[in-house]
């Protein structure tokens, strides 16, 4: 039977589609575009606002990891394969923590300062090795968080092994949720719009062929530094946020988990889409809550997911789903 038929794929798309602005002609088209975006927005907001307190915290953690994953994906779509989101996360966390602990600044000041300063510090730290790419950059970013951890341990600065405790919390859980939700959507949709702009195109071109980009007269190192700043600022924000959420900062913020989980989320969701990592995080983090009773076996589980995803499912969920959503498939009889 299959000899006589073939599968045809047609783009379902909307009727008129200009480059940047969608020309919408009907409610159906608007709904078609809006529907996939509304599901996660409404879903996560519902989960964050209406579930019991414990699951509220889980939803917040999900948002944080989603932001880390989105920023990982952003960096990787600028050609920088980072294995150390924990570095950016930890720097942001320690900045906010020490500002609050030593200077007594309130939450509303420490978080913005930590975002900017954390981003700057991470960028400066990685500036000497910004020429590297691929495995070399990955090695450096994998090693740096471990190094800072050892440094904190060896010099006993910033609270040493115990960390800084008793930091000021958020006024209430609603503020916390609203803040992280807003930040997550802003970073996701902002970065998507950003990548699609002319300016963001340079980042993609650096990933695709940095020699050619260099040859066309663009200073790729300056652009890489900017991308690094944007990506690490997002992570630093997450770090600062978590610091105040847990009222604690310490060496665990440089833990492997903060590096691995975002990558696992991106690998599941689909690398290079920015929305894929979010989907991945929404799957992985609640799942890991269910697996909490297994203790450290959770990390084994992430590792397995990573390996399996990379080998067997390189496409990721998001690519698959969006293809299914945007295409009609039908069997066509061959003449």
């Amino acid at each position: 039977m299959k000899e006589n038929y073939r599968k045809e794929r047609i783009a379902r798309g909307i009727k008129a589609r200009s480059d940047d602005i969608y020309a919408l002609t009907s409610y159906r088209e608007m709904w078609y575009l809006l529907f996939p975006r509304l599901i996660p927005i409404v879903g996560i907001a519902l989960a964050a606002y209406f579930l019991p307190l414990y699951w509220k915290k889980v939803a917040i953690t999900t948002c944080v990891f989603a932001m880390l994953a989105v920023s990982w994906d952003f960096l990787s779509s600028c050609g920088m394969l980072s294995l150390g989101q924990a570095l950016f996360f930890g720097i942001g966390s320690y900045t906010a923590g020490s500002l609050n602990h030593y200077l007594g600044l309130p939450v509303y000041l420490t978080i913005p300062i930590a975002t900017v300063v954390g981003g700057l510090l991470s960028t400066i730290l990685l500036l000497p090795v910004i020429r590297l790419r691929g495995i070399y950059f990955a090695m450096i970013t994998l090693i740096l968080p471990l190094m800072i951890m050892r440094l904190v341990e060896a010099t006993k600065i910033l609270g040493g092994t115990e960390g800084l405790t008793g930091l000021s919390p958020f006024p209430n859980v609603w503020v916390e949720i609203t803040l992280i939700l807003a930040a997550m959507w802003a970073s996701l949709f902002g970065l998507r719009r950003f990548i699609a702009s002319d300016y963001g195109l340079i980042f993609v071109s650096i990933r695709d062929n940095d020699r050619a980009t260099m040859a066309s007269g663009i200073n790729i190192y300056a652009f890489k530094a900017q991308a690094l700043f944007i990506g690490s600022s997002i992570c630093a924000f997450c770090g600062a946020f978590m610091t105040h959420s847990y009222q604690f900062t310490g060496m665990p913020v440089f833990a492997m988990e903060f590096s691995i989980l975002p990558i696992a989320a991106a690998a599941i969701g689909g690398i290079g889409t920015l929305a894929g990592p979010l989907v991945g995080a929404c799957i992985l983090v609640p799942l890991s809550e269910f697996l909490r009773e297994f203790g450290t076996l959770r990390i084994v589980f992430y590792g397995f997911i990573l390996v399996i995803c990379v080998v067997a499912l390189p496409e990721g969920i998001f690519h698959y789903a969006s293809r299914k959503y945007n295409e009609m498939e039908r069997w066509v009889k061959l003449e």
Partner: protein
Amino acid sequence: MLVYGLINSAVLAVMALGFNLTFGISGVANFAYGAIYVVSGFLTWTLINHLDLPYALSAILTIIIIGVFGGLIYKLIIRRIRGLVISEVIATLGISIVILEFLRYVGFIGFKYSLPVFIKGSVEIFDAYVDIQRFFIIVLGILLITGLYLFTHHTKIGLAFRGIAQEEHTSLSLGINPDRIASFSMGLGSSLCAFAAIVILPLGTITVDSGYDVLINALSVCIVGGLGSTFGVIIASFIIGYAQTITATYLSPHWTIIVSLCAILIILAIKPSGLLGHQKELEERV
């Protein structure tokens, strides 16, 4: 201190050789290296203490098993994604995490896991007591390096190794199967790693965390020496070995790992191909 530095260098060289071999030949940076190191330590321990095998036999068994295991990792996982840098890194790191955290889960934590030393006793040199085991490491390291040199330069499969490392397409046309060679190199690299583990681990206890340290040390030595260059590895292990010993003496042992990290940073910032790396790689990878 001079003696300690020499010993430390030999330890580092033995550790890094396996990593370097795999990277130089198949181009796969094996982030699971530290995990393999720890696994071989535990495997030997289990063979000795639970199956009551003699020490030499269990060491040889471990080397063989780990070698096969490394080859299998290549066949099952890395072969499918070879050449895609992101996937390679993520997959090997994933393997490493699976292994290490699984060991942690199973309960290989604590101080009771240590291998017996080959030769007990110590000698006094320049007012410092040194275990004979450490001299043993130096001797074995030299033997290993010589053996590896003879292997790659004078046997057929070793020459095929070098061919693949230099020009894969030409070797293909000469009838060399790159996949087979690469998986063999991965196996050999893992065996070397197991060997290093068996030789070095009797000096301390086996912990899961040492896996990450070994990975960092191997990486730093290989990067400083130039990835894929055996002679570079030896020089780099001397540099880093002495630097670590000096910092451990004058500051504190906490700082040793920071020294190797700083070495990586400095070398990568100044000469990314390493001290003795090839210029071609500089252009390709940086």
